[in-house]
């Protein structure tokens, strides 16, 4: 992917004049930029992975892997939420490194938009997986927990690199699992609190916001091309 198409004036644009709305050429270039960005981040595969988590949640509800009550009832849903958040964090990997950072002024916005859109998609897919079935906590808890875990994943990506960013949400899930079985009620363990718990919502939202800001401004800590991405093809 290059940013050449973006830097070059779009065909048909009048030199020196600033149009009130983007011309079709600029629009096409913008769409192409977004598509190339999403393709370079393997977003289509990420969406398939998110769909798989939604299916797993459905399977868990159908086959009663998720109990109706008890302290461990939120364990599997919180694991799948953390898995979806890990996908979003891993998607932050840049296969181009420094050249991309040096040329693309839209890069922070693309990072922000992708992370936000994927978070929305993760919530939607998991909510769809739980539709017409009793999931403890409901859709509200899914949204809060996915947002919080995504924040942890994005922060981990900024520290370890995006390819290993799944370690953050997974480690959090282990801690949350212990807290769930021990009936902890701290707002920092979101899966263990009721969906309308204001403290948990604030803490999850805070972590999500910090993660989004960090990933937007700095991006993931990926040292060089070829260290963390996919193989050829």
């Amino acid at each position, binding site marked *: 992917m290059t940013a050449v198409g973006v830097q070059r004036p779009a065909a048909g644009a009048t030199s020196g004049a600033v149009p009130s709305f983007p011309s079709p050429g600029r629009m096409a270039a913008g769409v192409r930029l977004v598509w190339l960005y999403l393709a370079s981040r*393997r977003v289509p*595969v*990420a969406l398939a*992975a998110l769909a798989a*988590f939604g299916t*797993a949640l459905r399977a*868990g509800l159908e086959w009663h*892997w998720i*109990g109706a009550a008890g302290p*461990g009832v939120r*364990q*599997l849903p919180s*694991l*799948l939420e*953390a*898995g979806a958040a*890990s*996908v979003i964090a*891993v998607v932050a*990997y840049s296969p181009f490194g420094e050249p991309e950072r040096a040329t693309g002024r839209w890069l922070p916005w693309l990072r922000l938009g992708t992370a936000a859109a994927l978070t929305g998609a993760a919530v939607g897919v998991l909510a769809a997986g739980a539709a017409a079935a009793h999931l403890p906590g409901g859709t509200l808890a899914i949204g809060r927990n996915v947002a919080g875990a995504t924040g942890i994943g994005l922060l981990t990506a900024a520290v*370890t690199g*995006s*390819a*290993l960013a*799944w*370690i953050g949400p*997974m*480690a959090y*899930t*282990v*801690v949350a*699992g*212990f807290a769930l079985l*021990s009936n902890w009620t701290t707002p920092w363990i979101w899966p263990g609190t009721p969906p309308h718990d204001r403290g948990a919502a604030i803490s999850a939202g805070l972590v999500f916001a910090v993660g989004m800001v960090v990933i937007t401004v700095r991006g993931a800590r990926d040292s060089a091309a*070829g*260290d*963390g*991405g*996919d*193989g*050829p093809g």
Partner: protein
Amino acid sequence: MTAAAMSLGYRRARAVRVAWLASAGRLLRIELRRNAMIWLLPVLGALFWFDAYRTAMSYPAVWDLRASVLPAKVVIDFAALVAGASAWMGARETRCRTCGLVTTTPQPGWTRRSATLAATLTWVIVAYLACVALLYAATAVQVTWGGPPWWPVAVGAAALAAVCTIGFAAGTFFASRFTPLLTAVAVFVLEVVGFRSAVGAFGGYRLLSPAGSAPGQDAGLFYPYLPDLAIAQAMFFTGLAVAAVSALGLSRAAGGGARLRVAAAAAGLAGLVAAGVSTGLVGTARVGPNGVVIAALHDAGSDQPLRYAPVCADATGVPVCIHPAFRSYLPKVTAALGPVISLVAGLPGAPVRVSEVATSLVASTNQQADVAGTPPVYRFAMPPTPGSFVQIAGENFTQSLQIAFVTTVIGGSAPSANGPETGNLAQQVVETVLLRRVGLTDGTLNPPTNAAAVAAIRRFAALPAATRHAWLAAHVPALRAGQITLAELP
């Protein structure tokens, strides 16, 4: 061939072998230094301290109980992260786009990947054994009886080796940025589903889950530790690990020729057979009073009770004896039982001795305690000790001991899990009054609430202590037999 030529040939072969070993050692050293698992060690250490170590330290200082966290907590906490990081290492050549480069090196793909896997596995096992050492060292300074069990250590090591090799194979065969996280989540889902199936359920294939082997509180105290299930689990996980390693040897990228493929196929088959046989063995498991018994692996000698000299105290004239492993709890037990022993002293059938026994001896009647023998001996199973992870709602250690004693001696049966009060209404009234006398509140006791019972409680509590004791001395056999009604209470 002359002797000199033979000697020369031997020396050459030896030199080749030494050079090969030196080369392999160098390769392993490099892989150890450049392994992603190093960066995971602090996370694993933190998780160990947070979950497994703190949970183990909340248990009584009993070897088997503390060691149970190794498969049930350490493996469960580590497995997903180990599988993910291992998949990351397995995908390295493809990820770094060096497949073409390394194919031209003198070492075949099998050797390279074996070195990477060996280094990854070494870090995993080192981390695990460090946790074992820490846990056992902390336990060694606290225990008063017995020695460390090693089967739980073996099961944990085998389980982690299995997830490490399976993760590595997944990373090798499906190299993608999503493979490590999907492997980690898949292992985690298996754990959660397996844990849900294993906890509270006995028998069947769910016992293959490491979380399914949590022993009772008195495991290894009154009867030897039963290794049947641990043997089957270790066999299952080792079989899976061998099969996963063999799969690496069978791949085209292994580049080892027909001999390697045949050897890998044979090893893989052996691994799968071992896993299959152990699964079949676990299917025949039954839960005995002292643990899981698998007939084909069972040593009948393990059914003989262990010999031990109980530790006793005699503060109230009634000796209180417990297992030496609980020596540090003896002052607490005597302090808890002293007041209730004094309340029933001199009553017909009052125990002349208090003795801790195996849970299996009193649990056969779904009780925590009973009064047996002539002269009567009060036998009880140790309740969850102070700080224990499992506590009965609303009760602490002292209250559990006192409630069990009074309800057993007065009502003839110890409390059930549903509440401390047992027996008919007259028995419950007497138990409530006596337990209030030693300081227990209604929040813990959950006394009967109907008007007649409340009036009887008030009436019986208002009696002078000597009058009440005299009435009990005359009527306690009938009360215990359920022949006294509320109206007959003074």
